Structures are given as C-alpha cells and as structure tokens.
C-alpha cells in the first residue's frame, strides 16, 4: 500500500481492504467509518465562520462577540478575576459543589440501592419515593432548597445530592438485579457466607451498572450546578455567566458557555477512562 493510501486510511478518507469489497454498506454500521476527517473540517469551518463573521462585522458584538474578545476575557479573568474570583476559582467553586453533592449521593444512594435490590421490605418501602422523585428535574427543587438553606454552599450541595441520589439508587439496584443466579449459587457452594457473597460477588458484579450511573449522575450534576448558579450564587461558572449577562458582557457569557462545555466533556472522558481502567471486564461476560 502506498504512503498516500495509508495516510488516507488513517484520517478516515479510505476504508480497509475488506470493507471496500462490501456491496451492502447502507445499514452495515461496521462499514461506516468514524469520519474523523469531516470532524476536523467541521471544526475549522465553524471557527472560520465565527472569525470572518466578526471581522466583517456581520453581527453586532453585543449579540456575538469576536473570538479575540472572548480570548482576551479568558486571559483577563484567569489573571485578574471577575467579581472577586479568578476563572479558576469560579471553576473550582462549581466543581467542589458537584464533587461533594455527588459523593454524598453515592454514599447514601449505593447502599440504599443495594438494600432495595436485596430486601423486599426496603424495596417496597422506598419504591414509591424513588419512582416519585426520579422523574422530577432537580432544578424544580431550587426554590425549595433556597427557602431551606439560603443561597450559600449548603443549598447547592443539597440540590446536587438530590440530583445524584436517585440515579445512584436505581443504578445500584439494577446492578444487584444483574447478578446471575448461577454465580450466587456457585459462591454458596464454594462455602461463602452471606456477607462474603455481598462483598465478593454482588458488589463487584454490580460495578459496571454503578459506574454507568456515576457517569450519568456526573453529567446531570454538572448541568444542575451551572443552572443553580444562574439562579442564585456568589461564585461559580454559572454565576459568572449570569453576572456578565446583566452587564451585556457577551464575551464573558460566551467564555462561560465554552468553559461549561469543555469541562462537561472532560468529565465524561475522564469517567470513561476510569471505567476502562477499573472495570475492564465490562460487557465481556
């Protein structure tokens, strides 16, 4: 294969030898490449459109500022801060809230989900609660938590705990339900006690479901914290966006939105990498 051929294959412009010979490709998802080449083109085109649109002054900068203005604000807020905090402090304020809220949600939610999976009484007792709270968007509780705990850290952490809790309960419960009876029987026949079965069979067996729940919960928590800060806060990336919007500082708003997107994406990638590392057997049993 020539150098050009190999290059074309690497950037996704050419298919491998067998795929090339396939006559049925529409509907055969293995014959659809990742299209990395087109991703690059797409990002370049959109960036160019943004740059040119601003340079030619096609849009009022109050509605859509130039990339350079957003970049300047990035440098500026990173160093000098906005509303008493630097960009990094705003980011950390938001991250801290989700980490604490998420951790509490896991701490209560996972054991509760396990108990619901293993005991009829606990399942019956908590089922109405879980089914009722699960479909309510966490943001609907913002007014309530503000009445309870004001606009400080406590109300946000309470909200995020609530957001993560039901997801983790359901994930842990599904994890317990996924354990094959033959594994449990095998463990009993190997002399394991109930406690050992819980710790050495049910718990590891449910890790894939729990991890999927964690990924979902992290995503929801990130969305919720930003939205909660938009409503009421004194720091955080959502607060930064809201404060800037009141002064029509659109460049800061756009900067905030980009930061939210980048961090949300990074969290998901990080969780996926952790999953590959910690649960290599996922989907292989």
């Amino acid at each position, binding site marked *: 294969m020539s150098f050009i051929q190999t290059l074309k294959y690497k950037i996704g412009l050419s298919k491998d030898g067998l795929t090339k010979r396939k006559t049925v490709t529409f509907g055969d998802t293995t014959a659809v490449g990742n299209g990395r080449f087109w991703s690059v083109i797409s990002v370049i085109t959109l960036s160019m459109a943004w740059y040119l649109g601003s340079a030619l002054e096609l849009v009022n900068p109050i509605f859509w500022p130039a990339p350079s203005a957003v970049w300047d604000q990035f440098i500026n807020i990173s160093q000098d801060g906005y509303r008493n905090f630097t960009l990094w402090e705003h980011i950390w304020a938001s991250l801290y809230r989700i980490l604490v809220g998420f951790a509490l949600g896991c701490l209560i939610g996972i054991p509760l989900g396990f108990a619901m999976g293993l005991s009829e009484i606990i399942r019956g007792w908590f089922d109405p609660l879980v089914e009722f709270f699960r479909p309510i968007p966490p943001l609907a509780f913002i007014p309530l938590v503000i009445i309870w705990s004001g606009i400080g850290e406590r109300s946000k952490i309470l909200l995020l705990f609530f957001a993560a809790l039901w997801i983790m309960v359901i994930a842990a419960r599904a994890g317990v339900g996924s354990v094959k009876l*033959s*594994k449990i029987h*095998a463990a*009993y*026949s*190997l002399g394991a*006690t109930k406690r050992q079965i819980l710790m050495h069979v049910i718990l*590891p067996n449910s*890790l894939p479901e729990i991890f999927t729940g964690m990924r979902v919960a992290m995503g929801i928590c990130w969305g919720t914290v930003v939205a909660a800060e938009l409503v009421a806060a004194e720091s955080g990336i959502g607060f930064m966006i809201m404060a800037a919007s009141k002064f029509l500082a659109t460049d800061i708003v756009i900067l905030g939105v980009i930061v939210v997107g980048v961090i949300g994406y990074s969290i998901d990638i990080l969780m996926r990498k952790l999953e590959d590392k910690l649960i290599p057997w996922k989907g292989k*049993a």
Partner: protein
Amino acid sequence: MSDLVVNDVSMVFDTPSGEQVHALENVSFSLKQGELLSILGPSGCGKSTLLNIIAGFLAPTHGTVELASTEIHGPGSDRGMVFQQGALFEWLTVAENIGFGLSMKGTPADEIKKTVNHLLETVGLHDFGDKATYELSGGMQQRVALARCLANDPDVILMDEPLGALDALTREKMQGLVLKLWKETGKTIILITHSVEEALFLGERLFVMAPRPGRIKKEYSLPFAEAGLTKDPRDVKADPDFGAKREEILNMIWEMEEEIMGQADDSGV
C-alpha cells in the same frame, strides 16, 4: 465413607394459576463415594430440580437427602457445583477464581497458591493463571470451573450440563478431562446432560428420568466410563453395545416426548 442417600424425595409446588406441579415423585437412590452418575431426561422431568435439592438450593416437600449420614438443609462446600456457563467471576483472574473457595475460608495465601498452581496443571491451564476469565475460550472457562470446584475438595461434584455450551470437538476433549479428574480424585459425581452419548460415555450409572410426575424411569449400570479411562474414547463410542444402548435410550426419550406432545394436543394447546 461419604455416601449420598436420596430418600423418597418428592417436590410438589403450586403455580400461581392454582395447578399442582409434581416436579419429583418418590425418588430414592444412593451413591457410594466415587461413583459417577449421569442423568438424562426430557425437559420437565425434574432432573435440575433434583440436582438443586442435592445442592441444597431447594428444600423438597417430602423426603430427605443425606451426605455422610448428615441431612442436607442448605448449600455447603462439601458439594461443589459446575454450571453450564457464566458462573465464573469475571472480576477475578483465573487463579483467583480457582482459589475463591479457599480464600473465603481464610486459608493462608501461600497454601492457596500451591493448591491453585497444582490445579492449573491438572486441568491443563498452567500458563493461564493471571489471565482474565473472559479472555479464555468456552472450553477453557469450563476447565477453570472444574478446578475452582476441586480446590475446595468437596465430597460430591454436581454438574449441571457443564459441557452443554461447547462445540462438539471441545466437548469430546472435556469428556476425557472429566473422566480423568474422576479417576484421579475419586470424587462422587452427578452429571446432568442432554446428550445421550455423553450420558452413556461418562456415566458409571445412568438414570433416565420421565416427566409428569418427575421420576426415575430406568436405571443402567455401564462399563463405558471405565473403558474410556484406558481406551480411546472414539473406540468406546464405536462399540456395538454402546450403539445399541444409545438407540434404546433415544427411543425411550422419543416416546416420552411424543406422549408429552399428545397430552398437549388433547388439552388443546
């Protein structure tokens, strides 16, 4: 001696629709230590129920099961189980799977390691201790399941269609391994299978069970397992006597199947 005595065991249960199912009716037999029993029968004949009762996962509605003169009331490490597939712990390595029972008992690590290494050798997996179970083929996974069971040194090994998910060639190889382990360890083995040939080849004794109610219809004492230890398995299976027995049992099972179908027709199903 650790004899297994199944004494007048019946299993009757009610379905939600109010019907009574006689999964087992007055089943009695005893196995001396070191006997290899295979059980055949059409689906619904209660062979899995019987195995689950002996394992201690089900309590019979009538009768008792005793191992070494002690009545069985629940699962225990004196009766090891080998399942068809999917009973290995995929979060543990091959070696950790084999050592699971011992480590649950709190056996010292170096002792576990010695036993595990010996068993890896016995089942022909000496280089695979550190592998993940999902990296192994189906046949190798069943070797691990056998080794995991043996590590606990149970009196009885209960096998629920252990080779049922394997391809024909692997299955023949594994039959040889089961015979070899049986001879080397002197364990009592009860093996459930759907394959008439496998039941004939591996069973020193063979029960053909019948459904509605679940019962032992016919019992055989067979020379083939013993012969398989010294002779080529292919020669044993080519023996005219082997072929005649196979036809006889196949006919018996076909008749039962047809009877079940007939009953289903009568009831308009």
